[in-house]
């Protein structure tokens, strides 16, 4: 037996890639730990990361290329060689291109995210405008809300210098565990914390002010805070005068949202709205710690988020020390992520439905309605999907997408696990985990880190980008970067930083780039905002373009889903809020990890005991939860942190998937994001049943 060695590598189970030490013995991982004393990371891994062994050595891992042998959707496969697999891909994708045109193939990036620029290159080389990602239901709508207002990509908070930090729908103790110490440090430094969350979470409990709105009413709450700030003369008049477009109309609109009226809409007391608004406006500088999806998983999501982001503009907290800033930290430039442009000379899927998504381009197509586009051949036939980590459970009514995938001429999924989403595939290819490959990571502070291969890839699994490179070659396509080989690709990422791959490999603690951009503030004094007006747009001129055709409004208007959704509220009395973070889960990905799955029963339907007892439901009862489009069976759990009237459920569990309850057409008309966090349901006890 050899001694164990420590390999400096990275955990990629959820995505941000925390640096990890893998203890490796005889070629196997025996234990993992968060790297400590590494610049840019406080150390430690979360519950999911610590379960790496059961993730990597999971019985569901795909180890060989597998070709469908039975009917589509049956899930019967036979092992083939990589050579045969590549030939099949080239043959089928070229056939689709020659018969229907390049646009009839969708290139889709699901989980993980690291290979996205390479897949976009492949889509471009093939000539398809339809490069899509799971961001069609995650984060991009938040970025879109920001861009429609400020013109640039979403700006993070400069919390080091802030005196007030406002968290909006982020239970970071559970969703971003490594941030825990930083969050605790804020309070120790005397920073005031406002937390907006529909539940009384552990994160909310550590805030000075907790605002607890009814899910989906964030917009009304933010507009009311704006009302207080403007009415009481607490706004930054000089900044607004010079740099803000549409302030008068915005001011007139927010007048409708007196705290008393907002109390009726949101459930947050008028007094608390005033206190929070005054603190945010007066205890400056103030910043907003945003979250990726909770606010935009509502049918008025983009507008709700625009209302929240507007608070920075009116209080002059944009691009000042301690506010939300584009250049608050040191950065070092690199290639690839966010730098590759999508082929856009041809109409992409989602473009007619969600034009602002494309006008404020995020360099991907919008595929929330993918199932409809395949089934109805709208706006043109979609015949093939080249998927990497495609997980149909990310979509509302996932069963419908699964049917659509079976209708395709050709569907490949490159996956770690033989997931439910692979069942419809013609070909399943084995990817390897972050522990089985090398990767260059760009970190905060202009730093770079080289993640080593801790173990050899299991079976015949491969690095996703090497798969993409070979697919490109087999189809006879060209891309100057993908043709560099994988080492060349990593060097290409580093090129603008001034570092070489070899020196980075030698420095296991990581290195700072040689070419650095130093922090700078008040950049708006020198550069115009990248909006049509050149100013911050409280009234978005991009949204206004589609006033007649799509009914969009340039102001961050509030529409109440409870009034506008055509759902019989007597039949479905509860608001259904799905997908609130739980520390042990990550979408559908880790239910197959027993150490995590055994922590709690699943699916769990969390209800306030008062609501539950009204319907004769005891803690632990088996219940049926139904919406207008689906029914799922699970276990009821009493939980008082969410208040009455709303039911909470995590998603993605094949034993009962919350997303089957969300109507596929219940979407934000601007972003196309599903209203995952404010649909409607009823809950009934199932007699004499145990799960």
């Amino acid at each position, binding site marked *: 037996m050899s001694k164990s060695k420590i390999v400096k590598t990275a955990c990629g189970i959820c995505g941000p890639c925390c640096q990890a030490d893998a203890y490796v013995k005889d070629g196997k991982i025996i*234990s993992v730990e968060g790297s400590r004393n590494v610049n840019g990371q406080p150390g430690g891994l979360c519950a999911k990361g*610590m379960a790496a*062994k*059961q993730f990597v050595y*999971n019985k569901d891992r795909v180890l060989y290329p597998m070709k469908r042998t039975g009917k589509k959707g049956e899930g019967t496969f036979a092992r083939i060689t990589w050579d045969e697999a590549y030939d099949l891909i080239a043959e089928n994708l070229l056939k689709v291109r020659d018969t229907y045109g390049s646009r009839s193939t969708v290139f889709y990036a699901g989980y993980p995210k690291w290979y996205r620029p390479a897949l976009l290159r492949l889509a471009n080389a093939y000539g398809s405008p339809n490069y899509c990602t799971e961001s069609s239901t995650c984060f991009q709508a938040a970025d879109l809300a920001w861009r429609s207002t400020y013109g640039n990509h979403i700006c993070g908070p400069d919390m080091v210098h802030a005196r007030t930090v406002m968290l909006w729908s982020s239970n970071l103790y559970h969703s971003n565990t490594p941030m*825990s110490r930083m969050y605790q440090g804020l309070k120790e430094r005397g920073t005031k914390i406002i937390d907006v969350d529909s539940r009384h979470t552990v994160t909310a409990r550590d805030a000075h002010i907790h605002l607890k709105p009814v899910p989906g009413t964030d917009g009304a709450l933010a507009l009311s805070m704006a009302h207080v700030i403007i009415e009481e003369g607490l706004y930054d008049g000089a900044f607004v005068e010079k740099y803000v477009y549409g302030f008068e109309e915005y001011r007139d609109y927010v007048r409708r949202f007196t705290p008393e009226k907002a109390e009726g809409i949101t459930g947050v007391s008028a007094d608390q709205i005033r206190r929070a608004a005054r603190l945010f406006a007066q205890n400056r500088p103030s910043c907003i710690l945003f979250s990726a999806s909770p606010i935009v998983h509502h049918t008025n999501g983009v507008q709700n988020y625009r209302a929240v982001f507007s608070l920075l503009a009116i209080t002059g907290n944009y691009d000042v020390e301690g506010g939300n800033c584009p250049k608050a930290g040191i950065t070092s430039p690199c290639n690839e992520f966010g730098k590759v442009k999508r082929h856009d000379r041809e109409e992409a899927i989602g473009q007619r439905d969600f034009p602002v998504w494309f006008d404020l381009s995020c360099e991907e197509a919008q595929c929330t309605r993918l199932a409809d586009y395949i089934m109805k051949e709208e706006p043109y036939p979609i015949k093939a999907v080249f998927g990497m980590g495609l997980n149909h459970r990310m979509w509302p009514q996932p069963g419908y997408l699964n049917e659509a995938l079976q209708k395709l001429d050709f569907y490949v999924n490159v996956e770690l696990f033989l997931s439910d989403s692979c069942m419809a595939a013609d070909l399943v290819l084995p990817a390897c985990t972050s522990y089985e490959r090398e990767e260059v990571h760009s970190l905060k502070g202009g730093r770079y880190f080289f993640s080593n291969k801790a173990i050899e890839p299991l079976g015949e699994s491969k690095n996703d980008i090497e798969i993409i490179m070979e697919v490109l070659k087999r189809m006879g396509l060209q891309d100057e970067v993908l043709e560099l080989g994988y080492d060349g690709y990593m060097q290409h990422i580093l090129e603008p930083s001034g570092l070489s791959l070899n020196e980075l490999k030698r420095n296991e603690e990581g290195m700072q780039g040689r070419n650095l951009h130093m922090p700078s503030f008040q950049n708006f004094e020198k550069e115009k905002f990248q909006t049509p007006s050149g100013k911050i747009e409280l009234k978005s001129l991009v949204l206004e373009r589609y006033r007649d055709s799509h009914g969009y409004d340039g102001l961050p208007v509030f529409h109440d889903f409870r009034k506008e959704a055509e759902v019989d509220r007597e039949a479905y009395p509860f608001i259904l809020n799905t997908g609130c973070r739980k*520390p042990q889960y990550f979408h559908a990905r880790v239910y197959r990890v*027993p150490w995590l799955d055994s922590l*709690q029963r699943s699916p769990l339907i969390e209800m306030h005991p008062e609501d539950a007892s009204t319907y004769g439901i005891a803690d632990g009862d088996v219940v049926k939860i139904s919406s207008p489009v689906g029914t799922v069976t699970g276990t009821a759990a009493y939980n008082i*942190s969410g208040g009455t009237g709303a039911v909470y459920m995590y998603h993605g569990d094949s034993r009962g998937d919350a997303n089957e309850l969300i109507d596929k057409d219940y979407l934000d008309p601007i972003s196309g994001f599903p209203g995952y966090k404010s649909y409607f349901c009823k809950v009934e006890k199932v007699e004499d049943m145990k799960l």
Partner: protein
Amino acid sequence: MRYRYRFDEKKCTGCFACQTACLDAHYGPEEEGIRFRCVKQIIIESEGFQKTVCPGCIHCGACVRVCPSGALYVDGATGLVLARRESCTGCRACETVCPVQAIRYDYDGKAAKCDGCLLRLKEGREPACVRACPTGAVTAAAMEDGA
């Protein structure tokens, strides 16, 4: 070197990192493992607040004092309370006195419990739960001899 193991319920956010860290430290990927740390609900009705916390053994020795077979004992070098599987008669006396309900019983009904990550301590590493805890709720302070 002796150690003082503590759990601060107030600081615990219920993130479960200690839970999987413990399993990672003691079991192989194919094993279900025994969860030495608890999963407990704290409910404060007046504040509309509830959270999950994960207390673990604090090596207080209460179980050692009631164990009739000597299966539970204090390790002289470290002060850790350990279980000697082969001596356990399965009487479960320890269960009744444990202040944190941290004693488990294996498939044979024999007592099993937190070993304080004795092997890791010998390698100069912290216990797995301490290393993983992001909020400082789980601690193991090394004490000077005689303390």
